[in-house]
C-alpha cells in the first residue's frame, strides 16, 4: 500500500520536497505495523531498511548498554542504510505496538544519490540527527562517523 504525498509532506524529513519529489519518494515507502518487542534492526548487521515512526515507541540500544528511546511521529531510525559502512550502529526494538514507514536502503540510496535536489534536502535533515546521536556510539565508531561528517 502506497503512502500519500500529504502524509509524507507532514514529516520533517520530507517537508522540503516539492510535489514531484514527494511522488517519487512515496513510491519507495511502505507502511508497516510493528508489535511490542519486535526487533527492527540488529547492531552490526547490514543496514537494509530505513524507518520513520508514524505511531509507537522505540528503543535504540548500543554497545556498552547505552540507549535512547524515540516516541515522536517522524523520528527516524536506521540511517546507517545511507551512511558507510552501511551496518546498523544500534539495535532497534519496538517498546509498544506501532506503525512505521519503511524504505529499502538500496532504493533510498539510489534516490538520494540519483537526484541531487532530493539528496540535499533529505541529507540536510538527516545530518543534524546523526550528529545528535553520535555520542551514543563507541569511541571507534564515533571517530569514524566524525571523519565522515567532516568530509
Amino acid at each position: 500500500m502506497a503512502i500519500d504525498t500529504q502524509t509524507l509532506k507532514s514529516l520533517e524529513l520530507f517537508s522540503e520536497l516539492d510535489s514531484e519529489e514527494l511522488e517519487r519518494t512515496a513510491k519507495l515507502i511502505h507502511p508497516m505495523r510493528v508489535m511490542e518487542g519486535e526487533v527492527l534492526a540488529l547492531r552490526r548487521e547490514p543496514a537494509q531498511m530505513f524507518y520513520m515512526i508514524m505511531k509507537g515507541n522505540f528503543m535504540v540500544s548500543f554497545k556498552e548498554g547505552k540507549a535512547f528511546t524515540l516516541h515522536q511521529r517522524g523520528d527516524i531510525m536506521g540511517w546507517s542504510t545511507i551512511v558507510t559502512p552501511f551496518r546498523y550502529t544500534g539495535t532497534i526494538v519496538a517498546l509498544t505496538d506501532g506503525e512505521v514507514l519503511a524504505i529499502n536502503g538500496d532504493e533510498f540510496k539510489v534516490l538520494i544519490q540519483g537526484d541531487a535536489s532530493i539528496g540535499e534536502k533529505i541529507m540536510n535533515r538527516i545530518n543534524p540527527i546523526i550528529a545528535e546521536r553520535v555520542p551514543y556510539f563507541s569511541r571507534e565508531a564515533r571517530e569514524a562517523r566524525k571523519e565522515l561528517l567532516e568530509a
Partner: protein
Amino acid sequence: MTGMEAISAHNGWAISAIGVTIVFTGLTVLSLTISQLHKVLAFMERKKSDSQKRAEGAKEIDVSDIIIPGDMKETAREYKMIIDRMDAPFSLPRLLELSEKCGLNRPYSNLNDLIGSGLIEPDGEGYYRWKGPDNP
C-alpha cells in the same frame, strides 16, 4: 536341623533384617541423590554461564531471590526492585533483560510507561536514572 529351626539357630532372621535394611537404605540414598541431581546440574550451568559473562565483561546481577508476587500491580515498584540491584545510572537494555528474566509482564510497554511518566529519565549520556520515589 533344617527349616525354621536352622534359620533361627544361625541368626538367619537377623541377617535377613540387616540385608533388607541395607538394600532399602541404598535405594533411599540413590533416590535422594537422583532427586537432587538437577541442583548440581543447575549449579554447574550457572558456573559456566558466569564464566562466559565474565569473559564478555558483563556484570552479573543476581535477581534470583527477587520474588514478584502475581498480585503486585505496581509496575513502578517491581522495576524499582530491579533498578536497586543495578549501578546508577543504569542501562535501559539491561533493565529490560533483567525484567524479562524476572518474568515481569509486558516489560517493553511497561518500561515505555515508566519513561513516559518520568519515573525513569535519561541522563543524557545514554544511561538512565530512577526519578520516582524511593518506595513507590
